[in-house]
């Protein structure tokens, strides 16, 4: 179905990190400069983005803990990196 590799997992974490930074920027802006529009955007888009990024991160961790990408890693790099121990 989907070919999940270590790179896929790292990309998920990367997307999650960038999305969280964006959502934090919106939320901080609404705290520092509270205006109706900013508050609405921060409380809707900002939090939706933050929630989605956390879900992405948890998905990435779940895939990693399940051992997805291990064979790909061993096959391509020839290293013995474990699912939870790094790349």
């Amino acid at each position, binding site marked *: 179905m989907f070919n999940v590799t270590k790179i896929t997992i790292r990309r998920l974490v990367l997307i999650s990190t960038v999305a969280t930074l964006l959502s934090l920027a919106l*939320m901080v802006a609404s*705290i520092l400069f509270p205006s109706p529009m900013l508050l609405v955007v921060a409380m809707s888009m900002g939090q939706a983005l933050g929630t989605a990024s956390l879900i992405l991160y948890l998905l990435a961790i779940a895939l990693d803990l399940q051992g997805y990408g291990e064979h790909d890693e061993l096959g391509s790099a020839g290293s013995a990196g474990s699912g939870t121990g790094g790349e």
Partner: protein
Amino acid sequence: MLELHSTEDVLRLSALVASFIAIVILVYYLVVRPPLGRATKVVLLFGLGVMPLAVSLAGNISGFEYTLKTDFCGSCHVMRPYVEDAADRTSTSLASIHSRNSTFGHESCYTCHADYQIFGAMTTKANGLKHLYYYVTEYSNTGPYGEGGKPIHMYKPFKNTMCTRCHSTEAPRWSLVEEHAGMLEDIRKGDAKCIDCHTGDKIHPRAFAHGGSGKAVAAAGSAAPVHAAEK
């Protein structure tokens, strides 16, 4: 910029501190790109989960608190005449008198238009979104006092219960007013409206005098519930 005078200020500061910690963690990850080992995962969980949740929680509470304040209501320019009148300490309008109250004066808009509280926070936010929608679509290009925009009016009639929450009709000083004493039962039943006598021009006179929406509403004598001329 950020002075700690209330719980809301403490929450705002907490949110900023939590967001700073999260940003440091995330930027470090993006720059250094450490291996996704156990320690990295735990630290990232703080940066992506725990801290943003704290920011969201503290930010939401302080945000909701801020939406109660007169400053927030006045941040849309069409509310300027209403808020200016409320802020005028020399004015004898009802908006100004209520805004000088040390207990709730800084939240006088919300306090007096408080049927929001009866229906709960969700309805308040839904109505607030409606305000924002109309502001953006119909009033954003109007004059400094809302000139050129459609008359501003309330969504529903101003009920006596909004006044009698505080003015219980039981206080001797209130009953000393001849008109009050003469129609006590009618006021309590809601057959006589408070705003029939305490009309919009006595509550928000500037809104009815500046030539903007308020005056348009007053002049039109509309059958719509416009007495307090607030949106």
